[in-house]
């Protein structure tokens, strides 16, 4: 067994938790009535969701003219929001798959909720190309031949927009499978401890007959590893292909080879920021501070810092090439349009949120200060939204012909639709928190046990499991014989 450094903090804090206490803590939100705070978040979220989706209905019945797009700026908030949501949808599978392959054991506390977030964010993203079609009921011609007199006219596989369709649908469905596959043992855990009849039936159906058999685990771990191995390049491919939607065009500011790595770094950056936004709150309200520890927050803040600087490097590379290429159009976009043009405020918002402000994460004290981390995560969410807005709108609004230059501003329809996707995201996330285990119970147990010393186990003979009544949420019973400093081998 691998040794654990004494310098490294334990992955589950609070002494030497019993396995049952981990189950108790994680399923507590599923067993208790929702708190006032939950309702306080849920009601506005549902309201936004309903209004936003009603607006989508209005937009589809009226047409794309309800948006503020014009001939020059043909992509606006729609594609900005699309790319923003897809980017957010990167952290979940990155945490689950890439950190799994690198054996980063701290992922176990956060992967489940990050994966849920991924799936919801990708749903929000997928709405945009769909409604952008104007007549979305023709959307199935994305993959079926267009009927016409000469025979089937197929889609163009040389187009990055089509690659994107394949990338996003693959990413979405594989992420769903990965997420649910991880959930099966935990749903079984809940099935076995709940006393409520209806819950027992529903979770019984959803648990696929899981009984903890090692014959199942033995193949399960292999399949999980295969999924992780497939999902890791998949995560990278998705935003690479999203970036090609831009990079294969001939629009100055889009036509750059730095785009694929730049977009992937940006996606991880915004994804981790959104995970932080949600988890800083969720760990508190769900009393999971000993499982999603301050060390986890610290690690994620480091990832935000690193990816933020990669994004900063990409920004400066674009400027370098804008100058070094000698292309007037390229140089004009970066040095005149973006930095000093009519949308310069958006550009400088992006730079301050994405490049300058994350630098405070060099300081450990700030990485471990929840208020600072929360505010920073919001900054990054805003900054990354502006990044996409800047890329899309400032490249389009001043094109090759000054006579066709044009400004763009969104209408209330676009704003309401954006709020609607936010409403959907939070509604669905809050329901997830209520009805499914938000932390991977089995995986946390594995790492908690891994970090424990073999000796000092004082709970050999008592206490059968699964007493759900009166489960003390979040209260772990530290074993007095094993203070956390002793957690040095497993």
């Amino acid at each position: 067994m691998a040794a654990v450094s004494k310098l490294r903090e334990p992955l589950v804090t609070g002494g030497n938790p019993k396995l049952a206490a981990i189950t108790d803590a994680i399923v507590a939100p599923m067993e208790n009535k929702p708190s006032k705070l939950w309702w306080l978040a849920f009601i506005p979220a549902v309201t936004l969701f309903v209004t936003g989706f009603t607006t989508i209905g209005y937009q589809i019945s009226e047409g794309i003219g309800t948006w503020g797009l014009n001939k020059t700026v043909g992509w606006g908030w729609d594609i900005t929001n699309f790319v923003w949501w897809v980017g957010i949808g990167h952290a979940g599978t990155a945490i689950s798959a890439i950190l799994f392959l690198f054996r980063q054991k701290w992922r176990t506390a956060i992967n489940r909720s990050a994966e849920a977030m991924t799936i919801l964010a990708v749903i929000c993203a997928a709405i945009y190309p769909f409604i952008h079609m104007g007549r979305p009921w023709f959307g199935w011609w994305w993959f079926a031949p267009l009927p016409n007199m000469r025979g089937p006219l197929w889609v163009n596989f040389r187009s990055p927009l089509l690659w994107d369709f394949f990338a996003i649908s693959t990413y979405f469905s594989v992420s769903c499978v990965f997420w649910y596959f991880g959930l099966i043992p935990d749903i079984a855990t809940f099935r076995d401890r709940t006393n409520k009849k209806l819950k027992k039936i529903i979770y019984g159906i959803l648990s696929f007959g899981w009984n903890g058999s090692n014959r199942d685990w033995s193949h399960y771990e292999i399949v999980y590893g295969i999924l992780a191995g497939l999902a890791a390049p998949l995560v990278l491919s998705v935003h690479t292909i999203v970036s090609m939607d831009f990079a294969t065009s001939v629009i100055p500011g889009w036509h750059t080879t730095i785009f694929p790595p730049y977009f992937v770094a940006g996606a991880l950056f915004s994804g981790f920021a959104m995970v932080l936004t949600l988890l800083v709150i969720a760990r508190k309200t769900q009393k999971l501070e000993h499982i999603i520890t301050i060390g986890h927050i610290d690690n994620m803040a480091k990832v935000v810092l690193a990816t933020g600087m990669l994004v900063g490097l990409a920004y400066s590379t674009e400027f370098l090439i804008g100058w070094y290429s000698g292309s007037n159009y390229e140089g004009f976009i970066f040095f005149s349009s973006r930095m000093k043009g009519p949308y310069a405020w958006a550009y400088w918002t992006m730079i301050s949120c994405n490049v300058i402000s994350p630098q405070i994460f060099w300081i450990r004290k700030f990485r471990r200060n929840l208020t600072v981390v929360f505010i920073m995560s919001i900054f990054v969410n805003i900054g990354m939204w502006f990044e996409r807005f800047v890329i899309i709108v400032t490249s389009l609004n001043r094109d090759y012909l000054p006579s066709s230059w044009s400004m763009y501003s969104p209408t209330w329809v676009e704003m309401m639709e954006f709020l609607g996707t936010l409403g959907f995201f939070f509604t669905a996330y809050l329901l997830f928190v209520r009805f499914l285990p938000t932390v991977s119970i089995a995986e946390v147990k594995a790492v908690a046990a891994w970090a424990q010393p073999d000796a000092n186990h004082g709970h050999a003979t008592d206490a059968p499991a699964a007493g759900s009544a009166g489960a003390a949420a979040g209260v772990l019973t530290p074993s007095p014989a094993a203070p956390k400093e002793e957690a040095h081998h497993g």
Partner: protein
Amino acid sequence: MASPAATPEPSATRELFVGMFTEEHQILSVAKDATDSGLPVEDCFTPYPVHGLDDALGWKRSWIPYASFAYGCFGLFLAISLQTHTQFIDFVPFWKGWPIIIGGKPFLPWPAFIPVFFELTVFCTAHITVLTYLIYRKKFPGAKAKVHIDGVTDDRFAIALDPTADNFDEDEARALFARHGVTEVLTVEGRA
């Protein structure tokens, strides 16, 4: 204790002789000792995947990765056929399109097809692999487990022996369990 039937297959239920433990290292060592001493170990039940348990039980590594490789090849083949057929070749009779001219570019620009090669390969491998697992382990919505042992999805570790096997010796099994700190020995009924 031991069922008189020598072959458990035809009966609707079967019994398992189960020892319950509370620690990961106990289940690892008891599984190893029981296997080494030739007791008929049917299965172990754990709340999380215990690494090293397969080795302790002397089980082989899963065959599923080989199947996954085949699914990946299938996905790649699908992607190649889809793109070459729809863009140029038209090898499916009665469903002919025509080569699409886009800016006079080549009809079969294979580098442009790579993203879809990759995506469909991943799509097929991931989905069919999971489907294989679920079918092979008989896991589907509403499936009922053959055996249910209380606590193994929470904080207990169980080892199950087959009491109907010829090499089963109850006294030896009890002694072995006790040596490793068993908390409870029970007989569990399950479906055959």
